[in-house]
């Protein structure tokens, strides 16, 4: 992908968090692009660093976190920008929605007030704020928006709360929306509606979305590009349909196999042994090697770099070509 196409370019991003036994590198040299107007899926299990990557992009890391690498936002390095610049980007250029909107929304404030906050901070007049809040709630698919704007978060169902969260995230007209497990806590029928809403907003506004999820089915259905993370590093990335149909990393392959079909009976997959590696206990060499069905001596000692193994396909496996053709 040509440089000018990327709205956001994550380049060698590292995040170190202070731990009880020294710093832990929870994100270790992660690189990928988010092209304008596309949805990129960031897939990973617990400890993969997917949420920390998203938090680093929007600048919401915990105290004591240290970062390295570059976050190139329309060519400007956001990672090393000052606090004022980052605050300005947050909400207006990049905004975020979370798995649990009830925790993210203020329980003591009416929905309309929270959605309108960024507009008020920008100095928009009262009447105009009110009008735009109702319009945003309406766009987020909230029925009777003028009345709902006066309600509190606890008066909303889970699906409506996530819609309110989306309205809030869109209030500052961002170009990139970070969505961290936005439908994980929702029932399937509600999930389908929220995903359709995100898709429609993306198409009408030309919004880019970075969808962080453990759920391959969700990512497969909405993302055009995917990044698969394991133990703080990129295992594989590329176009979603290709990566999920013909993985170039044994970890992606195992993940895909462990997702059963809904309408037909799938035989139980041969499960991977053990639990996902964590950045605090990252194995030497390839971090996936203790669980990998094709691991060899080289995998135990030599860290595999992310390399292009087929056009547009990047994998951090020494034997990616073998995985691709098997």
């Amino acid at each position, binding site marked *: 992908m040509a440089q000018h196409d990327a709205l956001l370019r994550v380049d060698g991003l590292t995040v170190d968090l202070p731990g009880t036994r020294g710093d832990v590198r929870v994100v270790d040299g992660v690189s990928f692009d988010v092209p304008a107007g596309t949805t990129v899926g960031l897939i990973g299990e617990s400890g993969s660093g997917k949420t920390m990557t998203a938090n680093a992009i929007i600048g919401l890391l915990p105290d004591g976190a240290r970062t390295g690498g570059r976050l190139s936002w329309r060519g400007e390095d956001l990672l090393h920008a000052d606090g004022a610049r980052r605050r300005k980007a947050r909400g207006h250029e990049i905004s975020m929605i979370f798995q649990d909107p009830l925790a993210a929304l203020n329980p003591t404030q009416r929905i309309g007030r929270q959605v309108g906050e960024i507009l008020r901070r920008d100095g928009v007049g009262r009447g105009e704020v009110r009008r735009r809040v109702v319009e945003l709630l309406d766009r987020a698919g909230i029925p009777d928006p003028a009345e709902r704007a006066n309600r509190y978060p606890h008066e909303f169902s889970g699906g409506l709360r996530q819609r309110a969260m989306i309205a809030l995230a869109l209030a500052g007209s961002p170009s990139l929306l970070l969505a961290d497990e936005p439908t994980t806590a929702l029932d399937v029928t509600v*999930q*389908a509606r929220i995903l359709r809403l995100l898709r429609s907003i993306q198409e009408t506004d030309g919004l880019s979305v970075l969808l962080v999820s453990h759920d391959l089915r969700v990512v*497969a259905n909405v993302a055009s590009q995917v990044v698969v993370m394991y133990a703080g590093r990129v295992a594989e990335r590329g176009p979603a349909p290709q990566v*999920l149909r013909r993985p170039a990393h044994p970890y992606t392959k195992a*993940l895909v196999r*462990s997702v059963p079909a809904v309408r*037909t009976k799938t035989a139980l997959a041969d499960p991977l042994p053990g639990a996902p590696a964590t950045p605090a206990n990252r194995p030497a060499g390839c971090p996936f090697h203790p*669980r990998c069905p094709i691991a060899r001596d080289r995998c135990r000692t030599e860290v595999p770099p992310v390399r292009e193994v087929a056009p547009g396909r990047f994998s951090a496996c020494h034997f990616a070509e073998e995985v691709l053709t098997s």
Partner: protein
Amino acid sequence: MTLLEIRDLRVTFGRRRDPFVAVDGVSLSVGAEETLGLVGESGSGKTTVARCVAGLQRPDAGTVTFEGRPLERVGRRPAELQRAVQMVFQDPRSSLNPRMNVASIIGEAWRTHPSAAPSGDRTAALHALLADVGLDPDVATRRPGDLSGGQCQRVSIARALAVRPRLLVCDEAVSALDVSVQAQILRLLVDLRRTHHLAMLFISHDLGVVHQIADRVAVMRRGEVVEEGPASDVLGAPQHEYTRALLDAALDLDDAGSVTA
């Protein structure tokens, strides 16, 4: 042969004059060594049905019987019926006592049900039980906080198996686990079902997982069973409009890009 029989079960919550009907006339049965999948969205009443079977919730009306004998609340249940029905919960960490090590957790199950306790060498029996669920003997001295989510769920399953049950009630037993660990626990449950001749009431919101392991499936909506039958029929050729709506909303890996505006 029918093991578990649920007849006209009704459970209400809240005020007597204006009750919330969580379960509204549900009848289901589970045969010996059979797995019944119970699916539905939140608020459908599936967990309340499970809690009635486990004796954690008293129904307002209806009966639950095990081989023809009534299953009352857990405190009133004869010990052998308590033993016969064991439950595995969604969150393995919060369902295990964080202060007890694994050996004590299993030992407590044996103390509660002396008739199921090993007569000979307890350590050997404990290690054999841990091996059954794929855990090393050294796990015995560890506490839940030192174990991964998957290991904790294996301990929960070992605790249930320790008293030699005939029916396992699994309420979203793999939902909180990492995808790659989910497959391990499913495989374990399927293996144990065969080796220990277990029947299962398997509750899940994940239709794909239910399709993989259930013989029959019941679909619940707002306290009622709307459709029930062999798994391949209900999930492959659904008859009820709600089952069809659930299946339409469920995503598959194969229909990539299917979510359109």
